[in-house]
């Protein structure tokens, strides 16, 4: 059974189109991430599903039931807001107990449930205190407690880790994953950080300017991005995209740019090979770029490294290859360890050729 199904959801505010024909399904017990830059429409999407905004068009089904016309309180969803929204005049205990008390659950059961959740999130010491005395991380955990204390058909989390220190984020991230796997709760998790999305999700939906650009598994999105936006948004550092010309040399397809000239026989395997335009862009993931100190068979292309980011477990080389600027990821002890001339090599993949008109990858 699907936990959530959206059909053609549209929502505008004044003249701005926040959601543009949004359609997707979230399976039962799935961890579904919606990832995209700020103002892509992610918060609007969650609030519309929860019923706090009324869509201009489209349908929302939760567990097979059409809830498009229903009030928020009847939808059995849980929403954790981006700005946390703990009730400031209620203690930690009362905040977490809130959904249960509103549903008129008997007080003994409320107490048990709240204690369970508090133990899980390690916030027992906060139950008697007011939110204004909590630290950022503590507020977050109490808010999460309130969101999960009552079983719901769908748990929605709006950038829950964004306001936290980098270290706490990494620690809490895995807690989310654990929680979800153990409880089997269907989750929609919204974030602008693609690392979080890749780490946590069963499937990812990339949202940009109100439209879903692509929906798929982390592997699928990473290795077969649909368009330029997805290719550059997912993956750190982002995929290199270099403009090139496709020419035919003795029946072999060759990609030519100011920095390289590579024969790519595998290109003929593309279904649309015959209709490929002359100018297109070649995509290469930074970890697939080979770097060497001198010209060799594996690294035939001359370039210049102008910045090395030493990140401990790896180094990122920023380099110029002809007119293009590319990034390459190498190990921490790589032989090329200072700025200056270096040699590069890569193998263009057929499914990483980008149509410059439609900004989509050829299939």
């Amino acid at each position, binding site marked *: 059974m699907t936990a959530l199904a959206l059909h053609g959801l549209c929502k505008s505010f004044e003249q701005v189109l926040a959601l543009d024909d949004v359609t997707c399904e979230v399976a039962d017990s799935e961890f579904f991430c919606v990832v995209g830059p700020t103002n892509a429409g992610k918060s609007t999407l969650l*609030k519309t599903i929860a019923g706090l905004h009324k869509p201009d068009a489209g349908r929302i089904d939760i567990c097979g039931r059409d809830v498009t016309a229903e009030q928020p*309180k009847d939808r059995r969803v849980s*929403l954790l807001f981006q*700005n946390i929204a703990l009730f*400031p005049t209620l203690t930690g205990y009362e905040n977490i107990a809130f959904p249960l008390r509103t549903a008129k659950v008997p007080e003994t059961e409320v107490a048990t449930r709240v204690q369970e959740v508090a133990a899980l999130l390690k916030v027992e010491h906060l139950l008697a205190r007011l939110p*204004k*005395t909590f630290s950022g991380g503590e507020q977050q955990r109490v808010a999460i407690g309130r969101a999960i204390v009552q079983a719901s058909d769908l748990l929605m989390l709006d950038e829950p880790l964004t306001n936290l220190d980098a270290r706490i984020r990494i620690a809490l991230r895995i807690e989310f994953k654990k929680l979800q796997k153990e409880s089997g709760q269907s989750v929609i998790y919204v974030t602008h950080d693609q690392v979080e999305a890749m780490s946590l999700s069963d499937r990812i939906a990339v949202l940009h300017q109100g439209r879903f650009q692509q929906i798929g598994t982390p592997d699928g999105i990473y290795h077969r991005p649909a368009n330029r936006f997805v290719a550059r948004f997912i993956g750190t550092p982002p995929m290199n995209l270099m403009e090139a010309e496709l020419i035919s040399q003795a029946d072999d397809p060759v990609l030519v740019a100011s920095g390289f000239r590579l024969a790519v026989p595998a290109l003929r395997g593309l279904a649309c090979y015959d209709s490929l335009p002359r100018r297109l862009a070649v995509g290469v993931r930074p970890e697939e770029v080979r770097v060497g100190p001198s010209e060799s068979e594996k690294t035939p292309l001359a370039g210049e490294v102008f910045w090395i980011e030493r990140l401990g477990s790896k180094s990122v080389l920023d380099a110029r290859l002809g007119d293009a600027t590319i990034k390459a990821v190498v190990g921490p002890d790589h032989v090329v360890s200072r700025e200056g001339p270096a040699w590069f090599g890569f193998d263009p993949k057929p499914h990483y050729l980008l149509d410059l008109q439609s900004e989509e990858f050829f299939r």
Partner: protein
Amino acid sequence: MTGQGTWVTVVKRAAVVLSMLIAFFPIFWLVSTSFKPFEEWANWPPIWITDNPTLQNYRIVFFPEAAREFAAAQEGSLDYKVSGSAWKAFKDSTIISTLATLCSVAFGTLAAYSIVRFRTGGDNYPFQFLTVRMFPPIAVVVPMVAMFSILRLSDTYWGLILAYTAFTLPFSIWMIRSFIEDVPAELEGAAMVHGMGQFRAFATVTLPLIKGGVLSTALFIFILNWSEFLFALVLTSGDVVTITIQVANYVSASSGKLYGVQAAMGTVSTVPVIVFGYLIQRHLVRGLTFGAIKR
């Protein structure tokens, strides 16, 4: 700190003292006059603080016999006929001001909520609402009198209450609106998602948070109502007497110019306002939302 800095400080402090003197002088004069005997009321040069303090004026305000005695004692100079005791004025003012304040704040809160959460009337609506209040009330006196007499509201409690509510509503809405805006919609959203209807969410979550703001608005409106004169004057003709009317009655052909009595009544009528302010003081607590909301 250089000498220059000290000079600036002296000037600043002097300016503050001067403005305080100007602001508090009328109150000082009022209280001082209320204790002056009859002869000193209109003295020139003015007597700042009397050497012969008396409670005569207060007695005239509160006790009809004292008023009659006084009137009799003034026989010969002017024919004083002091109107009845001021108790009715206190009673009428209290009833009217309190009820008018309650109505204004209640409707104002509901309207402000609608304007903030649902953007009723568009973005400029609150400002348009306020401009209605910008023309001088005296301009609508004549139509008001006509309307009230047609509606049989002249000289009734509810007539004046309605009029006061209508005229203070723009202020209510304007002030309470800003307090509601300070409370993020997500708080109500959280309550709604967890099972409350919209209105219940507002009442349970938002109202307690704006309590201080609503109370301070109420105080402001109360002061406006309590000290209102123009409409009290034209919309009543004796059945309803507010404090402001009563004070005016002490300067008339029949009463003469009873400055001292006016001062006494004025002094006494500040007491309820001060008490009200003191009572709600502990509710004016800011920063309640600190720590529960991330911006």
